[in-house]
Every structure is written in structure tokens, then in C-alpha cells.
């Protein structure tokens, strides 16, 4: 709560007579420094010129209520804090004036007053502490820092990290990239008809006699049954193609007997 909230001087001032305004300002000067009810109580307490612990809370309460009355008479708006405090002090005053009711629960008037005195004393102690703090030697006023600091150069050293796993994965990635072509076939175990055709075209020139088709299988394709099957099929298909072209003759003596072929002489030779 700032002082401005406390008394709305600007607005109310407009409607006042000069005399009224001066009176209001006089009071404002008086209360200008007050930051809140405790502050005001502290100041009122100080005017009694006694130790806070021995302060007459009753007397203080009366002064405070008088202050609030005066402020109200000037039609100044009082902040909620002040009004709450006023109400509380009025209650405290009544408690202190009346003999304690033994049936009533809660702290007695004396206890409440003692606590209020504690609060006031604590606030005063903090004020004094603040003053001592501000009276200390201060940097930039009493002692000074280096006028020409040297900038600390921030050297950012970047180290790169990679794990063996990442290295191996990278290598695997490169080496297996070729495998990702669509419709990848088992090329190692597949002997295509084109290959067989190419191979046989080169060989049939020497095939004057009937020869088993199997002898035309490429080297290394006879042992593994998978490879052999593929090579046989390709070679057979190629020989049919060559027969169609009229380059070779085929014969088979019996069902499942070996197929034989030989170069076809004559027609174009």
C-alpha cells in the first residue's frame, strides 16, 4: 500500500476550498511518511517518549483512534489496513478496560497488548537494522571494484564423440545400402536364362557331338542343389531358345533320361 492509496488527495483536493485544502495538506505532510498502521502506531508510540515495551497500548489505541477520526473528518479515504487496525484497537481497548471474563477463550487483553508491543518493537528493530546496514561501507561509494576489468575470454572447446557402435552401424548402413533395391533376388544362387544363353552361345560352336545338357552347367553350380537347380533350369531354357533359333538340336532317349544337345549343322552353316 503506497501513500497515494492512503489519501486520495488529487481527486478530493479539487472540491475543497483553499483553506480546507491547506488543512488537508497539513495533515498529509504529517502522515506522508506512514506506510501502514504499525508504522503509525510506532510513530505515535515514539511521541509518548517511552520504551516500547512499557508503552501504554491503551493510550496508543486512543491516539490511533483519534487519528483515524481526524482523517475521516477530512473526508480522506482511509486504506483498509488502517480501518482494520482501528477496529482491532477498539476491541483491544475494550478488553483492557473490562475485567477479564474467565469463561472466555482466547488470549487476554494483556496478551494481545504484549504481542502488539512485540510487533512494534520488532518493526523498530528492523528500522534500526536497515539504518545500520545502509550506514555500512558500500561498494561504489566507499570501496570500489576494478575499474578496467579484463574480459574473461570464453573458449568453447568442442569435442566430438562417437561410439564404436555408431561407427559400425554407419559402416553397415553403407555396405548394405545396395541390398535395398526393390525385388532383390538371391543373385548368388540364381543363374539367369540370359546368363545361360550367353554362356552356351560361346560353347555350342564346339558341340559337334551329342552332349549331355548337364555338362553345360557353369563351374561351381553343380555341387549346391539350389544353385544346380537354378543353373539347370536356365541352361535348359537357353537350349530351348537356341533350338528355336535353329542353332542346336535336342534329344531325350527316355522319360527323365538326360537331355542331350548338339550343334545343328547345315542350314546356315
Amino acid at each position, binding site marked *: 500500500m503506497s501513500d497515494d492509496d492512503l489519501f486520495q488527495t488529487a481527486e478530493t483536493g479539487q472540491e475543497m476550498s483553499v483553506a480546507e485544502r491547506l488543512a488537508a495538506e497539513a495533515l498529509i505532510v504529517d502522515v506522508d511518511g506512514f506506510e501502514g498502521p504499525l508504522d503509525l502506531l510506532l510513530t505515535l508510540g515514539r511521541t509518548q517518549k517511552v520504551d516500547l515495551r512499557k508503552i501504554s497500548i491503551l493510550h496508543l489505541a486512543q491516539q490511533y483512534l483519534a487519528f483515524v477520526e481526524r482523517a475521516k473528518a477530512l473526508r480522506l479515504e482511509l486504506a483498509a*489496513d488502517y480501518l482494520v487496525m482501528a477496529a*482491532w484497537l477498539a476491541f483491544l481497548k475494550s478488553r483492557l478496560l473490562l475485567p477479564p471474563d474467565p469463561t472466555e477463550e482466547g488470549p487476554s487483553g494483556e496478551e494481545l497488548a504484549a504481542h502488539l508491543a512485540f510487533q512494534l518493537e520488532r518493526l523498530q528493530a528492523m528500522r534500526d537494522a*536497515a539504518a545500520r*546496514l545502509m550506514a555500512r*561501507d558500500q561498494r561504489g561509494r566507499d570501496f570500489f571494484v576494478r575499474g578496467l576489468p579484463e574480459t574473461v575470454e570464453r573458449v568453447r572447446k568442442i569435442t566430438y564423440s562417437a561410439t564404436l557402435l555408431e561407427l559400425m552401424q554407419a559402416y553397415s548402413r553403407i555396405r548394405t545400402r545396395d541390398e535395398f533395391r526393390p525385388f532383390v533376388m538371391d543373385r548368388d544362387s540364381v543363374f539367369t536364362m540370359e546368363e545361360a544363353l550367353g554362356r552356351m552361345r560361346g560353347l555350342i560352336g564346339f558341340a559337334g557331338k551329342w552332349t549331355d545338357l548337364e555338362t553345360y552347367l557353369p563351374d561351381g553350380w553343380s555341387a549346391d542343389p539350389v544353385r544346380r537347380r537354378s543353373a539347370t533350369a536356365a541352361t535348359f531354357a537357353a537350349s530351348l531358345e537356341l533350338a528355336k533359333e535353329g542353332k542346336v538340336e535336342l534329344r531325350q532317349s527316355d522319360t527323365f533320361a538326360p537331355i542331350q544337345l548338339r550343334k545343328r549343322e547345315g542350314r546356315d552353316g
Partner: protein
Amino acid sequence: MAEHDENSPETVAQPGPDPHEQSLFEAPVMAEQERMVEAILFASTEPVSVKELNDRMPHGCDAAEALVHLRKRYEGRGVRVVKVGDAWAMRTAPDLGFLMQKETVETRKLSRAAIETLAIIAYHQPVTRAEIEEIRGVAVSRGTVDQLLEMEWIRFGRRRMTPGRPVTFVVTQEFLDHFGLESARDLPGLKELRAAGLLDNRLPSGMIPGVGASDGADEDSDALEGQTELFED
């Protein structure tokens, strides 16, 4: 970095350093370490922590020991080696402040509210806004706290483990540096205030009107705890 290869961090920090290899590199002699601390503190306006000193000095240095020597060396000089919280700095001797008119920076004048709030935070830390208000008997304006935060004299501390988990405020190293304090323990009159019970947040609950009263009551036990914590370490 070329001129101190023998202590080069690269040499000792290579992957999988052999402990025997490390011992081959002796730390510089203490006189040399003292020079290093002197240069680092001298060059910096901000206090430098012992950890940072060690980080910046060659491997094997003991900045804490070098500081003891250095501080002694500067005793009574025009410049002093001062401790600020966990860090160290060089500052001109306060009795020579009158020579420095030229260097004086006009500091923003703090309002009375700001000064009181600062003092309450310093002496009661960690302290919640409600507690500050309870002590001052008036609401703490946002601007006041903002100003102190902006000046980096206060910062947020740990939250209170009470309903609403309110934030607390504590003072900073910057605050200590500004007021030439080694630690918050060295605040003037702290001991006396504590002995007088004026730093206790004692409060008969629910009976005091006004700002933050009930909140303050809740945080009572915690506040005491916090203080103990602060001043014990």
C-alpha cells in the same frame, strides 16, 4: 595457451590418463599460484569462487591456500582481498573512498519501503512475502520487491513447505558484495537481535489483524527452522 604446455589440460585430460603420468606434472609452486589468483581476482569486477579459480588455474593448484597467502599480502594495502559468500574479490580499502569521487556511480535512491524490506529479508531470510508484510504491518508493493530483485540484492529461495507453498526471499552474493559482508551471518547486530527474540516470527495465531497475519502464523515454525538452517552452515 602455448606457454604453459607442461601443465596443459590436454596433456592430462586425454582419454584414459594413467595416474602415474599425472604425477609427472607438478603443480606450480605456491608463490606462482598466488600470482595466478592475484591476476584472476584483479582482472574481475565480480567475486570469483574458489571452484572457478581452481578451474582456471593449471591442474593441481590449490586456490584456497593461495588465497590465504594473498589475503595476507594485501593486508593494509590500498586494495584488499575480501571474501564475499563463497567467492573472493579485490576491492579498494574503504578508508580511501574519498579519493574515488570520480569513480562513484550515482546509485538509485532506494525508497524507505525498499530499504526496510531489504533489511527484513536479510535478517529473517528465508522469508515469505506474508512474513515481510506481517513485520512491516503493511502490504509490500510489487514494485519494491521487483526493484530489489532487479538490483540482484535479493533472489527467490526455496519454497516453504506450508499450504500454498509460498516462495521465500533470500539475499544474494551481490548484496553481500555491495555491503562488504563476508556472509549474512556478519549482518550488523544480528546476534543481539536474535538474542532479544526479535528475529523470531512468534505470533499468537489468528489474533492480529492486518496484512498477512494468518499466513505468517502458518509459517511460524518454518521460519525458525529456515533461520537455523541459514546460520548454521
